[in-house]
């Protein structure tokens, strides 16, 4: 068996099902046709969002220029809370059911990018809150539940980075990915219940209906954030996949080395199997 055979995976014992869809050996970059197209979409839509959001769309009747944060803040929040952690949930369930490496790594990649987006949601929200409500932080149900989810998924990422047996680690992460999602929902309801016992929701960031140019700028923001998210997750996933394969090959190579050492030793001593 040659080193090339090991490198291209043809003798690694990994079946075709173990590979990512569209896998072509050997992979030298985490980019592909798809990520390049998505990357171009991301760049163009972000540029368009900046132009429409900052310059072309009109200031809001009530909020003035601070409404422009809406075009960034809301898409980021939608991608983080509704897309990223849903992928993590689905990936975790499938991994626990059939042990799929693909879904395990995808769940991890989505969570990692999702945490960044959730952090951006908090930061842009606080920057928006200062001119709108007069303070960076209000103990509003939405804010509170978002902050708790942020910490929850930081914990998820901490588990994924644990120094332990990869299979057991993936299972622990998957359990956390499932229960964490459920808990995010519970936190959301409990904190809105907590406030509603005292006062109604007084904070409605956007009570005026949006239309025309504002709606278009928002749509651009959504396309921009979705494509950036997809681009990052695809690259992150491929990187994790390559790391996974490198680990598998190292193990394979080490086993081969041991085996050939053993065979050489047996040949030298004349104690071939079945002989003597």
């Amino acid at each position: 068996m040659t080193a090339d055979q090991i490198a291209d995976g043809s003798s690694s014992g990994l079946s075709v099902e173990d590979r990512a869809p569209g896998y072509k050996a050997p992979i030298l970059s985490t980019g592909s046709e798809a990520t390049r197209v998505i990357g171009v979409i991301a760049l163009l839509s972000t540029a368009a969002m900046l132009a429409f959001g900052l310059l072309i769309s009109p200031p809001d009747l009530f909020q003035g220029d601070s409404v422009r944060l809406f075009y960034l803040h809301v898409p980021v929040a939608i991608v983080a809370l509704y897309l990223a952690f849903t992928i993590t949930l689905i990936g975790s369930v499938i991994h626990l059911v059939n042990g799929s490496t693909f879904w395990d790594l995808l769940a991890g990649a989505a969570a990692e990018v999702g945490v960044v987006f959730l952090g951006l949601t908090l930061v842009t929200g606080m920057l928006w809150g200062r001119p709108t409500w007069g303070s960076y932080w209000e103990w509003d149900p939405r804010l509170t539940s978002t902050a708790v989810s942020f910490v929850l998924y930081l914990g998820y990422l901490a588990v994924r980075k644990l120094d332990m047996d990869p299979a057991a680690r993936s299972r622990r992460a998957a359990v956390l990915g499932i229960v964490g999602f459920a808990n995010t929902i519970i936190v959301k309801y409990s904190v809105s219940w907590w406030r509603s016992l005292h006062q109604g929701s007084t904070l409605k960031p956007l009570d005026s209906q949006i239309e025309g140019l504002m709606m278009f700028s928002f749509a651009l923001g959504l396309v921009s954030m979705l494509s950036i998210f997809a681009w990052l997750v695809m690259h992150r996933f491929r990187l994790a996949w390559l790391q996974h394969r490198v680990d598998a090959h190292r193990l394979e190579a080490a086993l081969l080395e041991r085996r050939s050492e053993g065979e050489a030793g047996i040949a030298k001593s004349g104690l071939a199997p079945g002989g003597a």
Partner: protein
Amino acid sequence: MLRDARLVAAKDLRIEWSSKVLTAQVLPFGFLVLILFGFGISPERIVQGKDGRSVLEDVSPALFWLAVLFSALLALGRSFAIEADDGNLDALQLAGLEPAGVFLGKTAAVAVELAVLEVVVGSGALLLYGATIRHWLLLIVVLVTTTLALSGAGILYAALGAGLRVRDTLVPLLVLPVLAPVLLGATRATEAALFGAAADGWSWAGFLGAFSLLYLGAGILLFGALLEES
């Protein structure tokens, strides 16, 4: 499953009874936290418009549950520390115990420990912070449901850190955000039991009951995946 749970719970409680770690270390810790809160919040300050209650009395439900929460972290860590040696968790499986039974047993043992802790720390809080109980039944229901919620969700998450060198730092990070709604519900319900109308408290008690059932169910279903090491 229930027989396995009873065996595991009895084993854990026997270990705690003979080692005295809970009574000698965790209980004093809970009491210490109560006293420290007293240092941090001046007892002389009076809240305006709240029947002349002191600040300390006004926030006593929150302080009591925070003290219980921090002590619960110690009890949870302890529950898996006693299994860390000699691959004990594997041994429990090899002995033919169902994972769901192990989960329920460890949960029950921690629940009993927390119940003892709550009675002791709670008495301390009543004495130190000068609160009085208005609705006894509500308070008892809240104590029971919160204890189940803390121990059920706590054991499920503490198992994620079982057998790791970073267990002591990882488990609080995982457990505390999960228990945030429990702290919220228990505090509101206890406030109702001490100062206010019982009606508000009962809806929170219902929430705590639902939370504990949900996590007991999740633990029964998922604990196997955590125990089953490669």
